[in-house]
């Protein structure tokens, strides 16, 4: 009776001692902030931040390789707490929101072939662009909707709509989109962007889409250079947006193809 108790007990003690010794000899000096941040993160290891685990994410944040707002699940609340640990002020963290740089839905999308294959953007993109005439526009199968961790994207008439209130700017939709039509832009009021990604000359854009940017440069003139047309595609210079007063209503109205979108 005594022997098995003794054996199990002593084995436990021996292994315990070995582990304690190992803990001390193999101790890795770590940034104390790492533990603090790790305790702030949700600990769900959801992977929405792009790192395999919460620990990996915390490590990247401490090393400054990942932004303080990396944690998608925790949202603003966690970001604020991490800001405090890292000693960064919340204002400096630029919050971004996703917009779709394309404006065709099922009614306006020009099709040159009927695509019957696997119903994802990724697959359609590989097969001659899914029969869509424009080689740069949104395919409308909603791959972005699938990956959105907060369900901010919904499909309506074959064009994803993004709920800007829900969007946390994680950029997973940007990654998954094979056409690269989704872009993260700084949050502004009003939110203005050019909803086209076609870099071809106006004539060619017109052939494939009624709503594409034809590089007429009207927006460039009206906004006093806030828009810039390069590669036959107009883009808003977001970094200068706060320095200028622009009549957005007029701008949106004057765009001949209506590809400048505004949201209040």
């Amino acid at each position, binding site marked *: 009776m005594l*022997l*098995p108790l003794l*054996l*199990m007990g002593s*084995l*436990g003690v021996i*292994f315990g001692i*070995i*582990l304690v010794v*190992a*803990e001390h*000899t*193999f*101790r*890795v000096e770590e940034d104390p902030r790492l533990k603090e941040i790790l305790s702030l993160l949700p600990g769900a*290891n959801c992977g929405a931040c792009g790192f*395999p*685990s919460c620990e*990996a994410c915390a490590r990247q944040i401490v090393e400054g390789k990942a932004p303080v707002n990396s944690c998608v699940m925790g949202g603003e609340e966690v970001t604020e707490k991490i800001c405090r640990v890292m000693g960064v002020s919340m204002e400096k963290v630029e919050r971004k929101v996703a917009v779709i740089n394309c404006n065709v839905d099922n009614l306006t999308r020009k099709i040159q072939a009927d695509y019957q294959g*696997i119903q994802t953007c990724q*697959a359609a993109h590989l097969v001659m662009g899914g029969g869509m005439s424009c080689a740069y526009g949104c395919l409308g199968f909603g791959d972005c909707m699938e990956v959105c961790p907060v369900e901010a994207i919904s499909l309506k008439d074959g064009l994803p709509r993004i709920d800007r209130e829900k969007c946390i700017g994680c950029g997973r939709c940007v990654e998954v989109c094979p056409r690269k039509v989704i872009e993260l832009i700084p949050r502004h009021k009003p939110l203005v962007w050019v909803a086209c990604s076609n870099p071809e000359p106006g004539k060619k854009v017109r052939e494939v889409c009624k709503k594409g940017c034809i590089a007429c440069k009207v927006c460039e003139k009206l906004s006093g250079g806030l828009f810039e047309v390069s590669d036959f595609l107009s883009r808003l210079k977001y970094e200068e947006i706060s320095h200028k007063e622009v009549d957005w209503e007029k701008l949106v109205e004057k765009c001949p193809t209506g590809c400048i979108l505004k949201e209040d």
Partner: protein
Amino acid sequence: MGVKFFLIFLSALTTQNIVFAYFLGICPYLGVSRKLDTALGMGMAVTFVMTLTALITWPIFYKILQPHDLVYLQIPVFILVIASLVQFLEMYFRKALPHLYTALGIYLPLITTNCAILGVALFMILKKFGYILSVVYAFSTGLGFAMALLIMAGIREELEMAPLPESLKGAPITLIIAGLLALAFMGFSGLVKG
């Protein structure tokens, strides 16, 4: 002797495959077989821990438990050894081999509760293997596990794009495939005796 090693090696991969023939370690087999690279990581981690387990539990069983007539204590003792071993390895890797540590990541602590590891420790006693043979057996069983995981992951990656009926997507088709694979591996029976 060399032939015997080879036969043990071969049978652990095919006829006596820990997953397909004994249905041990099914949890990680279904859990971490979604992608090839994670499957490889888990497979390597299991192989490594299995080999070390055999290295340590064999002497404990034959030098301590058997002489003192305490064979009935083998399961708790083996569990104790495996759990401590994994803990120890985790600490050691973190210090000495940080790259391996991050590569194995979450899988290392997961192995603590992997029944395949305990299964191997018990099998090698049951089959009355010698010391070196036990280590070879454990190593090849680990490789067999890794192989099963990799086959499954390869199939599941292909399945992502397959036009499956809605009700079969996810777990159901995975279980069906696991069954078919086990059936296929039964075809190896008779290849190696014992």
